[in-house]
């Protein structure tokens, strides 16, 4: 194709997006669009998969059967989200194996929040309430993103995430209304998960890259700082309602702007965790790599069996 032709296609492509038409796998798309989508969708998929680990850590120790069932269902949903999102990536011509390879080699990222440990049961509440809460704020706009398979996956994901978020908040309500020990456990979890949750909305706008292009492609509709403000404004009253204290001495309602002012985020910690130095980065990667490597013989067997079966069926057909 000539440069002229490509320019034309690009113009048509951008126009379609501007008209809110969906781009589908078989449509022509600029290489950068494809790559950016693979990067973002796979990062999202990886986050679901790695995100199973901190919650999976409490399945065997859930305090009641009802909570155990709910936790199992939630982690299973996360695996399901991973599955749709990997499939959505595959529509752009990249295999799941390649994507795993990128995760395991450290080339691909996943949400840094999952590099913190879950050390008490209350962390199951805090993750649902805060982490899923922040995730929803990030994800709801993506239900209208330009790439069809991603947008459709996000509709389903967001619906389930809302359910998880309510479930997490409900765990916190129960603890906050429980014995002093339970209330302390809830407050402690909020103390530990609050700042990492704020960081989940991404670096401050000044430090953020890719934003403009992503806005155009509807991969992003608001800036990180706006999303963060939205998260804070939504979450602070929820904490107050159940008598928990946000661990930020600088937090206060700004009557004039109609939002909460909040304290400074420790971006050093953020970048440290992103770079692999968080408390659980190595453990998380080890868990994923071990599962993959120890599962190699199983996947090989499944392939070998399918191949044998195919041959037998062909022979019968002859």
């Amino acid at each position, binding site marked *: 194709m000539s440069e002229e032709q490509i320019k034309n296609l690009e113009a048509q492509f951008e126009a379609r997006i501007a008209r809110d038409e969906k781009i589908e796998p078989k449509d022509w798309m600029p290489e950068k669009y494809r790559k950016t989508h693979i990067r973002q969708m796979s990062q999202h998929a990886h986050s679901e998969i790695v995100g*199973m680990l901190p919650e999976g850590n409490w399945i065997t120790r859930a305090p009641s059967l009802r909570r155990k069932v709910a936790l199992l269902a939630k982690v299973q949903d996360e695996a399901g989200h991973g599955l749709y999102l990997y499939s959505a990536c595959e529509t752009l011509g990249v295999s799941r194996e390649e994507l795993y390879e990128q995760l395991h080699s450290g080339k691909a990222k996943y949400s840094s929040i999952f590099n913190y440990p879950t050390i008490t049961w209350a962390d199951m509440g805090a993750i649902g309430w805060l982490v899923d809460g922040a995730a929803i704020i990030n994800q709801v706009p993506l239900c209208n993103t330009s790439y069809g398979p991603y947008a459709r996956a996000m509709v389903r994901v967001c619906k389930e995430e809302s359910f998880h978020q309510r479930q997490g908040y409900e765990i916190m309500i129960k603890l906050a209304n429980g014995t002093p*020990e339970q209330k302390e456990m809830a407050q402690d979890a909020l103390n530990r998960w609050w700042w990492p949750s704020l960081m989940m909305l991404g670096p401050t706008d000044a430090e953020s890259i890719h934003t403009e292009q992503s806005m155009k492609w509807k991969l992003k509709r608001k800036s990180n700082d706006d999303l963060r403000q939205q998260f804070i404004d939504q979450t602070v009253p929820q904490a107050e309602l159940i008598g928990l204290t946000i661990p930020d001495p600088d937090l206060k309602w700004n009557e004039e702007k109609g939002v909460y002012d909040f304290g400074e985020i420790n971006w050093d910690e953020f970048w440290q965790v992103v770079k692999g130095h968080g408390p659980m980065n190595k453990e998380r990667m080890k868990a994923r790599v071990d*599962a993959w490597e120890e599962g190699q013989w*199983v996947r090989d067997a499944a392939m070998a069996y399918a191949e044998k079966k195919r041959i037998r069926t062909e022979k019968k057909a002859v």
Partner: protein
Amino acid sequence: MNNNLYKYILGIADNSLILGQRLGELTGHGPSLETDIACTNMSLDLFGQVRSYFQYAAKIAGDQRTEDDIAMLRKEREYINVLLVEQPNRNFAYTMARQFLFDVYHLLFLQELQKSKDLTLAAIANKSIKEVSYHLRFSSDWIKRLGDGTEESKAKMQDAIDGLWTYTDELFHQTEADKVMVQEGIGVDVTELKEAYYEKVNAVLEEATLEIPESKWFQKGGKQGIHTEHLGYLLAELQYMQRAYPNMEW
């Protein structure tokens, strides 16, 4: 309180409880996303069944006992699951072999239990059959895939079947509570399931090109609360929160 009925329910539910717990250990660590989801799903089904059984048991007990008390506040010697289901997840072949050897029994058992005179048990059985049929399909498929897959997978699956075979006979032992319940038309006579069980198991093993173990030596004790050393560690985790934070709501 009808002690025999209470014990009878525990004898059924403890199997699902302990197997569900074992499957729950695997979440996030499966050999593929699809198997991970399936194992989590089976765990979920089993714990759902456990809740129904223990809610009913709590009602029969008629005291302050809750489903969680029954599930998590008994002593080591009071769990009466069969030894099979407490065996550890040594590798995926073991996990699937354990599942399969239990699923075949579980389905046969539930098919009979749905005819129980006890309408609650019949209803739980009826509801569970669909789930357990799926479990059996899933585990049978993996017995075949691994048995008739690669040399390595065949060796691993044969090893798992050989290792777990010794725990199969116990499935067909009757406790005193069982006998009373059978007489009353409530319980299932498990001795009558044995033939169908080994027929089904052997058919799948054969299709999977695996050898049917010849050993005639079997382990028992689970139904009397005499377990292998694995169970104690499982219980330490299962009970942790209820023990460390007693009498609280979650």
